[in-house]
Protein backbone atom coordinates (compact mmCIF):
# COMPACT_ATOMS: atom_id res chain seq x y z
CA UNK A 1 0.00 0.00 0.00
CA UNK A 2 1.29 3.42 -0.84
CA UNK A 3 -0.19 6.67 0.31
CA UNK A 4 0.71 10.04 -1.13
CA UNK A 5 3.13 12.16 0.83
CA UNK A 6 1.79 15.33 -0.80
CA UNK A 7 1.63 17.99 1.85
CA UNK A 8 2.57 15.57 4.63
CA UNK A 9 5.60 17.60 5.80
CA UNK A 10 6.50 21.25 6.02
CA UNK A 11 9.61 23.37 6.30
CA UNK A 12 9.15 25.46 9.45
CA UNK A 13 12.62 26.85 9.98
CA UNK A 14 15.45 28.13 7.79
CA UNK A 15 18.91 29.43 8.57
CA UNK A 16 21.94 30.83 6.77
CA UNK A 17 25.52 31.29 7.99
CA UNK A 18 28.96 32.34 6.85
CA UNK A 19 28.12 34.06 3.53
CA UNK A 20 30.41 35.00 1.90
CA UNK A 21 33.06 33.91 4.42
CA UNK A 22 33.51 32.50 7.90
CA UNK A 23 36.22 33.99 10.10
CA UNK A 24 39.72 32.48 9.66
CA UNK A 25 40.19 29.08 11.24
CA UNK A 26 36.53 28.11 11.02
CA UNK A 27 35.64 24.56 10.06
CA UNK A 28 32.80 23.41 7.77
CA UNK A 29 31.10 22.05 10.89
CA UNK A 30 31.21 25.50 12.54
CA UNK A 31 29.44 26.90 9.51
CA UNK A 32 26.90 24.08 9.23
CA UNK A 33 26.07 24.11 12.95
CA UNK A 34 25.59 27.86 12.98
CA UNK A 35 23.12 27.61 10.11
CA UNK A 36 21.39 24.76 11.95
CA UNK A 37 21.05 26.81 15.13
CA UNK A 38 19.67 29.72 13.12
CA UNK A 39 17.09 27.42 11.52
CA UNK A 40 16.03 25.99 14.87
CA UNK A 41 15.71 29.48 16.33
CA UNK A 42 13.66 30.51 13.30
CA UNK A 43 11.37 27.53 13.89
CA UNK A 44 11.15 28.12 17.64
CA UNK A 45 12.25 24.54 18.26
CA UNK A 46 14.89 23.64 20.85
CA UNK A 47 17.92 21.66 19.60
CA UNK A 48 17.12 18.79 21.98
CA UNK A 49 13.85 18.21 20.14
CA UNK A 50 15.72 17.23 16.95
CA UNK A 51 15.48 13.47 16.46
CA UNK A 52 16.38 13.31 12.76
CA UNK A 53 19.72 14.66 11.50
CA UNK A 54 20.44 15.02 7.78
CA UNK A 55 23.81 16.57 6.95
CA UNK A 56 26.01 17.00 3.90
CA UNK A 57 29.20 18.70 2.82
CA UNK A 58 32.08 18.39 0.40
CA UNK A 59 34.84 18.75 2.98
CA UNK A 60 33.44 16.42 5.64
CA UNK A 61 33.42 12.66 5.34
CA UNK A 62 30.97 12.27 8.24
CA UNK A 63 29.02 15.53 8.39
CA UNK A 64 26.11 14.07 10.37
CA UNK A 65 28.45 12.98 13.14
CA UNK A 66 30.09 16.39 13.26
CA UNK A 67 26.71 18.08 13.53
CA UNK A 68 25.40 15.71 16.20
CA UNK A 69 28.47 16.24 18.35
CA UNK A 70 28.40 19.99 17.89
CA UNK A 71 24.77 20.36 18.91
CA UNK A 72 24.80 17.58 21.49
CA UNK A 73 22.26 15.49 19.61
CA UNK A 74 21.73 11.72 19.66
CA UNK A 75 19.07 11.35 16.97
CA UNK A 76 17.25 8.13 16.18
CA UNK A 77 17.37 8.85 12.45
CA UNK A 78 20.69 9.79 10.77
CA UNK A 79 21.27 10.50 7.07
CA UNK A 80 24.57 11.51 5.47
CA UNK A 81 23.58 10.96 1.85
CA UNK A 82 26.27 12.31 -0.47
CA UNK A 83 25.13 12.59 -4.07
CA UNK A 84 26.58 16.02 -4.77
CA UNK A 85 24.88 19.39 -4.84
CA UNK A 86 21.31 18.13 -4.61
CA UNK A 87 21.98 16.19 -1.39
CA UNK A 88 19.86 18.50 0.80
CA UNK A 89 16.91 18.15 -1.60
CA UNK A 90 17.34 14.39 -1.58
CA UNK A 91 17.47 14.57 2.22
CA UNK A 92 14.27 16.63 2.27
CA UNK A 93 12.66 13.77 0.36
CA UNK A 94 14.09 11.29 2.87
CA UNK A 95 13.05 13.46 5.82
CA UNK A 96 9.40 13.57 4.81
CA UNK A 97 9.48 9.78 4.34
CA UNK A 98 11.02 9.37 7.80
CA UNK A 99 8.44 11.71 9.34
CA UNK A 100 5.58 9.89 7.59
CA UNK A 101 6.86 6.51 8.74
CA UNK A 102 7.38 7.73 12.29
CA UNK A 103 11.16 7.29 12.51
CA UNK A 104 11.61 10.95 13.39
CA UNK A 105 9.47 13.97 14.26
CA UNK A 106 11.81 16.93 13.96
CA UNK A 107 14.19 16.69 11.00
CA UNK A 108 17.18 19.02 10.78
CA UNK A 109 18.78 19.26 7.32
CA UNK A 110 22.08 21.12 7.26
CA UNK A 111 24.96 21.94 4.96
CA UNK A 112 28.18 23.86 5.57
CA UNK A 113 31.35 24.79 3.76
CA UNK A 114 34.50 26.86 4.12
CA UNK A 115 35.22 26.60 0.41
CA UNK A 116 36.60 30.15 0.22
CA UNK A 117 38.41 30.53 3.53
CA UNK A 118 40.01 27.08 3.29
CA UNK A 119 42.17 28.54 0.52
CA UNK A 120 41.85 25.49 -1.72
CA UNK A 121 40.78 25.98 -5.33
CA UNK A 122 38.08 23.35 -4.88
CA UNK A 123 38.05 21.73 -1.46
CA UNK A 124 36.48 18.31 -1.78
CA UNK A 125 36.85 14.83 -0.40
CA UNK A 126 35.76 13.31 -3.71
CA UNK A 127 37.21 9.91 -4.51
CA UNK A 128 39.67 9.97 -7.43
CA UNK A 129 38.03 9.29 -10.80
CA UNK A 130 40.88 7.22 -12.17
CA UNK A 131 39.82 7.22 -15.81
CA UNK A 132 39.75 11.02 -15.84
CA UNK A 133 43.04 11.55 -14.06
CA UNK A 134 46.00 12.43 -16.21
CA UNK A 135 43.89 13.94 -18.98
CA UNK A 136 44.02 17.46 -17.56
CA UNK A 137 40.44 17.15 -16.33
CA UNK A 138 39.56 20.20 -14.23
CA UNK A 139 36.40 18.69 -12.76
CA UNK A 140 32.83 19.97 -12.95
CA UNK A 141 33.51 23.00 -15.15
CA UNK A 142 34.70 20.81 -18.04
CA UNK A 143 31.73 18.46 -17.76
CA UNK A 144 29.21 21.29 -17.78
CA UNK A 145 31.15 23.03 -20.57
CA UNK A 146 30.79 19.93 -22.74
CA UNK A 147 27.08 19.89 -21.98
CA UNK A 148 26.88 23.54 -23.07
CA UNK A 149 28.94 22.88 -26.17
CA UNK A 150 26.65 20.03 -27.22
CA UNK A 151 23.57 22.14 -26.45
CA UNK A 152 24.90 24.79 -28.82
CA UNK A 153 25.55 22.12 -31.47
CA UNK A 154 22.13 20.48 -31.21
CA UNK A 155 19.89 23.50 -30.68
CA UNK A 156 21.76 26.58 -31.84
CA UNK A 157 22.05 27.97 -28.33
CA UNK A 158 24.38 30.96 -28.28
CA UNK A 159 27.10 32.09 -25.90
CA UNK A 160 24.96 35.20 -25.41
CA UNK A 161 22.17 32.98 -24.05
CA UNK A 162 24.48 31.61 -21.37
CA UNK A 163 25.54 35.18 -20.62
CA UNK A 164 21.87 36.14 -20.17
CA UNK A 165 21.69 33.67 -17.29
CA UNK A 166 24.65 35.29 -15.52
CA UNK A 167 23.28 38.79 -16.06
CA UNK A 168 19.80 37.83 -14.82
CA UNK A 169 21.33 36.28 -11.70
CA UNK A 170 23.27 39.47 -11.06
CA UNK A 171 20.17 41.62 -11.47
CA UNK A 172 18.38 39.51 -8.85
CA UNK A 173 21.44 39.64 -6.57
CA UNK A 174 21.43 43.41 -6.75
CA UNK A 175 17.96 43.27 -5.16
CA UNK A 176 19.11 40.82 -2.47
CA UNK A 177 20.68 42.14 0.74
CA UNK A 178 23.79 40.14 1.57
CA UNK A 179 24.33 38.66 -1.88
CA UNK A 180 28.04 38.17 -2.51
CA UNK A 181 28.32 39.71 -5.99
CA UNK A 182 26.32 42.89 -6.53
CA UNK A 183 28.35 44.93 -9.01
CA UNK A 184 26.89 45.71 -12.42
CA UNK A 185 27.31 43.00 -15.05
CA UNK A 186 26.53 43.14 -18.77
CA UNK A 187 26.33 40.53 -21.52
CA UNK A 188 29.54 42.03 -22.91
CA UNK A 189 31.27 41.64 -19.54
CA UNK A 190 30.37 37.95 -19.44
CA UNK A 191 31.52 37.33 -23.02
CA UNK A 192 34.82 39.16 -22.43
CA UNK A 193 35.70 37.36 -19.19
CA UNK A 194 38.80 35.19 -18.94
CA UNK A 195 38.27 31.86 -20.74
CA UNK A 196 37.95 28.85 -18.42
CA UNK A 197 36.53 25.95 -20.45
CA UNK A 198 34.85 26.79 -23.74
CA UNK A 199 32.18 28.04 -24.10
CA UNK A 200 32.51 29.25 -20.51
CA UNK A 201 34.44 32.21 -19.26
CA UNK A 202 34.85 33.15 -15.62
CA UNK A 203 31.42 34.82 -15.39
CA UNK A 204 29.67 31.66 -16.61
CA UNK A 205 30.94 29.93 -13.48
CA UNK A 206 29.61 30.08 -9.96
CA UNK A 207 31.21 32.01 -7.14
CA UNK A 208 33.57 30.46 -4.63
CA UNK A 209 32.34 31.36 -1.14
CA UNK A 210 31.87 29.88 2.30
CA UNK A 211 28.36 29.29 3.49
CA UNK A 212 25.95 27.16 5.39
CA UNK A 213 22.23 26.58 5.14
CA UNK A 214 19.76 24.60 7.17
CA UNK A 215 16.09 23.62 7.28
CA UNK A 216 13.81 22.29 9.98
CA UNK A 217 11.09 19.92 8.76
CA UNK A 218 8.12 18.60 10.74
CA UNK A 219 4.82 16.91 9.97
CA UNK A 220 1.94 18.92 8.53
CA UNK A 221 -0.04 18.28 11.70
CA UNK A 222 2.59 19.96 13.82
CA UNK A 223 3.32 22.67 11.24
CA UNK A 224 -0.30 23.80 11.31
CA UNK A 225 0.32 25.53 14.60
CA UNK A 226 3.59 27.16 13.59
CA UNK A 227 4.34 30.44 11.84
CA UNK A 228 4.54 30.42 8.03
CA UNK A 229 4.92 26.72 7.28
CA UNK A 230 5.90 25.86 3.71
CA UNK A 231 4.60 22.49 2.58
CA UNK A 232 6.32 19.89 0.43
CA UNK A 233 3.78 19.27 -2.32
CA UNK A 234 5.96 17.03 -4.47
CA UNK A 235 9.49 15.69 -4.33
CA UNK A 236 11.60 13.27 -6.34
CA UNK A 237 15.20 12.12 -6.63
CA UNK A 238 17.29 10.11 -9.10
CA UNK A 239 20.90 9.08 -9.71
CA UNK A 240 22.07 8.06 -13.17
CA UNK A 241 25.89 8.00 -13.42
CA UNK A 242 29.16 9.20 -11.89
CA UNK A 243 31.57 9.97 -14.76
CA UNK A 244 30.76 12.35 -17.58
CA UNK A 245 31.60 9.59 -20.10
CA UNK A 246 28.76 7.53 -18.65
CA UNK A 247 26.12 10.25 -18.94
CA UNK A 248 23.69 8.76 -21.46
CA UNK A 249 22.94 12.04 -23.27
CA UNK A 250 24.54 15.38 -22.43
CA UNK A 251 21.46 17.48 -23.20
CA UNK A 252 18.74 15.35 -21.60
CA UNK A 253 19.10 15.06 -17.85
CA UNK A 254 17.49 13.24 -14.94
CA UNK A 255 15.64 16.49 -14.22
CA UNK A 256 13.06 15.38 -16.79
CA UNK A 257 12.28 12.38 -14.60
CA UNK A 258 12.37 14.04 -11.18
CA UNK A 259 10.45 17.03 -12.48
CA UNK A 260 7.68 14.90 -13.96
CA UNK A 261 7.39 12.84 -10.77
CA UNK A 262 7.31 15.89 -8.52
CA UNK A 263 4.72 17.67 -10.67
CA UNK A 264 2.53 14.56 -10.76
CA UNK A 265 2.66 14.21 -7.00
CA UNK A 266 1.96 17.91 -6.48
CA UNK A 267 -0.91 17.83 -8.97
CA UNK A 268 0.62 20.85 -10.68
CA UNK A 269 2.24 21.69 -13.98
CA UNK A 270 4.94 24.23 -14.90
CA UNK A 271 2.55 27.14 -15.59
CA UNK A 272 1.33 26.77 -11.97
CA UNK A 273 4.79 27.59 -10.57
CA UNK A 274 5.26 31.17 -9.36
CA UNK A 275 9.00 31.10 -8.70
CA UNK A 276 11.82 28.66 -9.54
CA UNK A 277 15.24 28.14 -8.00
CA UNK A 278 17.38 26.17 -10.46
CA UNK A 279 20.88 25.37 -9.24
CA UNK A 280 23.18 27.42 -11.47
CA UNK A 281 26.71 26.18 -10.89
CA UNK A 282 27.24 27.15 -14.54
CA UNK A 283 25.14 29.25 -16.88
CA UNK A 284 24.02 26.28 -18.97
CA UNK A 285 22.24 24.69 -16.01
CA UNK A 286 19.09 26.80 -15.78
CA UNK A 287 18.68 26.57 -19.56
CA UNK A 288 18.72 22.77 -19.50
CA UNK A 289 16.50 22.61 -16.39
CA UNK A 290 13.89 24.98 -17.85
CA UNK A 291 13.62 22.48 -20.71
CA UNK A 292 13.75 19.24 -18.74
CA UNK A 293 11.34 20.47 -16.06
CA UNK A 294 8.85 21.45 -18.76
CA UNK A 295 8.91 25.26 -18.58
CA UNK A 296 9.73 25.22 -22.31
CA UNK A 297 10.32 22.64 -25.04
CA UNK A 298 13.67 20.85 -25.39
CA UNK A 299 16.08 23.15 -27.18
CA UNK A 300 14.06 26.28 -26.37
CA UNK A 301 15.93 27.14 -23.18
CA UNK A 302 18.15 29.64 -24.98
CA UNK A 303 15.24 31.64 -26.43
CA UNK A 304 13.44 31.36 -23.06
CA UNK A 305 16.22 33.20 -21.17
CA UNK A 306 16.85 35.71 -23.98
CA UNK A 307 16.02 39.41 -23.50
CA UNK A 308 15.85 39.15 -19.72
CA UNK A 309 13.54 36.11 -19.77
CA UNK A 310 14.52 35.01 -16.25
CA UNK A 311 15.63 38.42 -14.93
CA UNK A 312 13.41 40.56 -12.68
CA UNK A 313 10.26 41.32 -14.67
CA UNK A 314 10.90 38.45 -17.11
CA UNK A 315 8.85 35.44 -18.24
CA UNK A 316 9.62 33.45 -15.08
CA UNK A 317 11.29 34.49 -11.82
CA UNK A 318 14.35 32.23 -11.58
CA UNK A 319 17.07 32.27 -8.91
CA UNK A 320 15.62 35.29 -7.19
CA UNK A 321 18.48 35.67 -4.70
CA UNK A 322 21.14 35.68 -7.44
CA UNK A 323 21.78 31.95 -7.29
CA UNK A 324 25.16 30.27 -7.26
CA UNK A 325 26.38 32.76 -9.83
CA UNK A 326 25.87 35.85 -7.65
CA UNK A 327 24.38 35.03 -4.21
CA UNK A 328 26.81 32.42 -2.89
CA UNK A 329 28.35 29.11 -3.89
CA UNK A 330 30.01 27.22 -1.09
CA UNK A 331 30.88 23.99 -2.93
CA UNK A 332 27.33 22.67 -3.15
CA UNK A 333 24.41 25.07 -3.57
CA UNK A 334 21.38 22.78 -3.25
CA UNK A 335 20.21 23.82 0.21
CA UNK A 336 20.02 27.45 -0.88
CA UNK A 337 17.46 26.63 -3.61
CA UNK A 338 15.15 25.44 -0.83
CA UNK A 339 15.85 28.36 1.49
CA UNK A 340 15.13 30.97 -1.18
CA UNK A 341 11.96 29.07 -2.12
CA UNK A 342 10.77 29.22 1.48
CA UNK A 343 11.62 32.91 1.74
CA UNK A 344 9.62 33.69 -1.41
CA UNK A 345 6.61 31.75 -0.12
CA UNK A 346 6.75 33.48 3.26
CA UNK A 347 6.71 36.82 1.43
CA UNK A 348 7.92 40.25 2.38
CA UNK A 349 11.25 40.17 0.55
CA UNK A 350 11.01 43.72 -0.75
CA UNK A 351 12.33 44.42 -4.22
CA UNK A 352 12.97 40.79 -5.13
CA UNK A 353 9.66 39.45 -3.81
CA UNK A 354 7.59 37.67 -6.44
CA UNK A 355 4.18 39.18 -5.72
CA UNK A 356 1.69 36.70 -4.30
CA UNK A 357 3.96 33.67 -4.75
CA UNK A 358 2.12 30.54 -3.61
CA UNK A 359 4.13 27.80 -5.32
CA UNK A 360 7.87 27.38 -5.74
CA UNK A 361 10.04 24.82 -7.48
CA UNK A 362 13.57 24.03 -6.37
CA UNK A 363 15.81 21.85 -8.50
CA UNK A 364 19.42 20.81 -8.07
CA UNK A 365 21.80 18.38 -9.76
CA UNK A 366 24.77 16.64 -8.21
CA UNK A 367 28.13 15.69 -9.65
CA UNK A 368 28.28 15.96 -13.42
CA UNK A 369 24.48 16.20 -13.90
CA UNK A 370 24.55 12.76 -12.32
CA UNK A 371 21.97 13.02 -9.58
CA UNK A 372 18.90 15.23 -9.53
CA UNK A 373 16.26 16.23 -7.05
CA UNK A 374 13.19 18.38 -7.49
CA UNK A 375 11.03 19.80 -4.71
CA UNK A 376 7.74 21.61 -5.27
CA UNK A 377 6.74 23.72 -2.28
CA UNK A 378 3.58 25.61 -1.47
CA UNK A 379 1.87 27.91 1.00
CA UNK A 380 -0.90 26.53 3.26
CA UNK A 381 -3.57 27.48 0.73
CA UNK A 382 -2.03 25.14 -1.90
CA UNK A 383 -2.68 22.06 0.26
Amino acid at each position, binding site marked *: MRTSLRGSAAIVGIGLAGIPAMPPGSTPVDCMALAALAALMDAGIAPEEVDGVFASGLQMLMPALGLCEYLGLAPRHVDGTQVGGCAPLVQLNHARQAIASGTCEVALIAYGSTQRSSGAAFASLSEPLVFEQG*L*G*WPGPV*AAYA*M*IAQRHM*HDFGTRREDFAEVAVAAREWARLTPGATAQGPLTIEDVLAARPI*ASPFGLRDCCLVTDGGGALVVVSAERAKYMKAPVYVLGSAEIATHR*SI*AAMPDLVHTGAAITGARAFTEAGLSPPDIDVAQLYDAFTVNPIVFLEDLGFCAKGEGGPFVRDGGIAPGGRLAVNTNGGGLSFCHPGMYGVFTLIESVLQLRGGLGARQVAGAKTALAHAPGGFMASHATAILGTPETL
Partner: protein
Amino acid sequence: MSGITPLTPPLSPLAQFEAGLTHGGITIAPEAPPARRFPPRLGAGSDTQHALATTGTVYSATHVSTRAGSHMLALIDLTDGGRLLARLRGETDASAAIGAQVALATDRQDDEPALTFTRIAEGAR
Protein backbone atom coordinates in the same frame (compact mmCIF):
# COMPACT_ATOMS: atom_id res chain seq x y z
CA MET B 1 35.76 -20.85 3.48
CA SER B 2 32.10 -21.38 3.88
CA GLY B 3 29.31 -20.86 1.44
CA ILE B 4 30.56 -18.50 -1.21
CA THR B 5 33.79 -17.81 -3.05
CA PRO B 6 34.98 -14.22 -3.17
CA LEU B 7 35.22 -12.82 -6.68
CA THR B 8 38.67 -11.37 -7.32
CA PRO B 9 39.66 -10.26 -10.81
CA PRO B 10 43.17 -10.98 -12.10
CA LEU B 11 43.52 -7.42 -13.35
CA SER B 12 41.78 -4.18 -12.41
CA PRO B 13 39.84 -2.36 -15.12
CA LEU B 14 42.37 0.47 -14.94
CA ALA B 15 45.41 -1.81 -15.21
CA GLN B 16 43.91 -3.59 -18.21
CA PHE B 17 43.02 -0.30 -19.89
CA GLU B 18 46.50 1.11 -19.33
CA ALA B 19 48.14 -2.07 -20.58
CA GLY B 20 46.08 -1.83 -23.77
CA LEU B 21 47.13 1.76 -24.35
CA THR B 22 50.83 0.86 -24.17
CA HIS B 23 50.19 -1.37 -27.20
CA GLY B 24 48.13 1.26 -29.01
CA GLY B 25 44.81 -0.40 -28.26
CA ILE B 26 41.74 0.29 -26.16
CA THR B 27 40.83 -2.71 -24.06
CA ILE B 28 38.31 -2.90 -21.30
CA ALA B 29 37.83 -5.33 -18.48
CA PRO B 30 35.58 -8.38 -18.58
CA GLU B 31 31.98 -7.44 -18.15
CA ALA B 32 28.65 -8.91 -18.99
CA PRO B 33 27.07 -7.36 -22.11
CA PRO B 34 26.47 -4.57 -22.93
CA ALA B 35 30.17 -4.27 -22.44
CA ARG B 36 31.25 -1.15 -24.31
CA ARG B 37 30.82 1.20 -21.39
CA PHE B 38 33.18 3.74 -19.83
CA PRO B 39 34.60 3.85 -17.34
CA PRO B 40 35.19 0.10 -17.85
CA ARG B 41 33.88 -2.04 -15.05
CA LEU B 42 34.01 -5.56 -13.80
CA GLY B 43 31.27 -8.07 -14.39
CA ALA B 44 30.46 -11.18 -12.45
CA GLY B 45 30.22 -13.61 -15.35
CA SER B 46 32.31 -13.47 -18.53
CA ASP B 47 36.09 -13.27 -18.61
CA THR B 48 36.21 -12.13 -22.23
CA GLN B 49 38.49 -9.19 -22.85
CA HIS B 50 37.17 -6.60 -25.21
CA ALA B 51 39.33 -4.77 -27.71
CA LEU B 52 37.50 -1.68 -28.93
CA ALA B 53 37.87 0.41 -32.04
CA THR B 54 40.56 3.08 -31.86
CA THR B 55 38.64 5.43 -34.15
CA GLY B 56 35.54 7.43 -33.43
CA THR B 57 33.55 10.66 -33.65
CA VAL B 58 33.72 13.63 -31.32
CA TYR B 59 30.41 13.87 -29.39
CA SER B 60 31.33 16.98 -27.42
CA ALA B 61 34.42 18.88 -26.42
CA THR B 62 35.73 21.78 -24.38
CA HIS B 63 38.90 23.82 -24.64
CA VAL B 64 40.30 24.18 -21.14
CA SER B 65 42.43 27.20 -20.27
CA THR B 66 44.65 27.22 -17.21
CA ARG B 67 47.64 29.24 -16.06
CA ALA B 68 49.85 26.37 -17.22
CA GLY B 69 48.41 26.33 -20.74
CA SER B 70 45.43 25.04 -22.60
CA HIS B 71 44.17 21.77 -24.03
CA MET B 72 41.10 20.18 -25.56
CA LEU B 73 39.09 17.48 -23.82
CA ALA B 74 36.53 15.48 -25.74
CA LEU B 75 33.94 12.79 -25.37
CA ILE B 76 34.49 10.39 -28.23
CA ASP B 77 31.98 7.87 -29.54
CA LEU B 78 34.09 4.92 -30.68
CA THR B 79 33.26 3.49 -34.10
CA ASP B 80 31.95 0.18 -32.75
CA GLY B 81 30.34 1.58 -29.62
CA GLY B 82 31.53 3.01 -26.32
CA ARG B 83 32.01 6.64 -25.32
CA LEU B 84 35.14 7.74 -23.54
CA LEU B 85 36.75 10.91 -22.26
CA ALA B 86 40.09 11.70 -23.90
CA ARG B 87 42.50 14.43 -24.80
CA LEU B 88 42.11 15.80 -28.33
CA ARG B 89 45.26 17.00 -30.04
CA GLY B 90 45.55 19.91 -32.43
CA GLU B 91 42.13 21.50 -31.89
CA THR B 92 41.27 24.81 -30.24
CA ASP B 93 37.66 25.32 -31.39
CA ALA B 94 35.33 22.97 -29.54
CA SER B 95 32.34 23.79 -31.76
CA ALA B 96 34.33 22.86 -34.87
CA ALA B 97 35.62 19.67 -33.24
CA ILE B 98 32.16 18.20 -32.62
CA GLY B 99 31.46 15.60 -35.28
CA ALA B 100 35.11 15.26 -36.30
CA GLN B 101 36.41 11.79 -37.18
CA VAL B 102 39.31 11.01 -34.89
CA ALA B 103 41.75 8.19 -34.11
CA LEU B 104 43.86 7.24 -31.13
CA ALA B 105 47.24 8.91 -31.63
CA THR B 106 49.97 6.41 -32.38
CA ASP B 107 52.80 8.78 -31.47
CA ARG B 108 53.00 10.51 -28.14
CA GLN B 109 54.08 14.13 -28.06
CA ASP B 110 55.66 16.00 -25.16
CA ASP B 111 53.73 15.31 -22.00
CA GLU B 112 50.49 14.27 -23.67
CA PRO B 113 48.46 11.61 -21.89
CA ALA B 114 48.44 8.17 -23.53
CA LEU B 115 44.73 8.55 -24.26
CA THR B 116 45.08 11.24 -26.92
CA PHE B 117 43.10 11.33 -30.15
CA THR B 118 43.78 13.29 -33.32
CA ARG B 119 41.59 14.23 -36.23
CA ILE B 120 41.73 11.87 -39.21
CA ALA B 121 42.64 13.80 -42.35
CA GLU B 122 39.73 14.28 -44.78
CA GLY B 123 39.44 11.27 -47.09
CA ALA B 124 42.05 9.29 -45.17
CA ARG B 125 39.71 6.73 -43.73
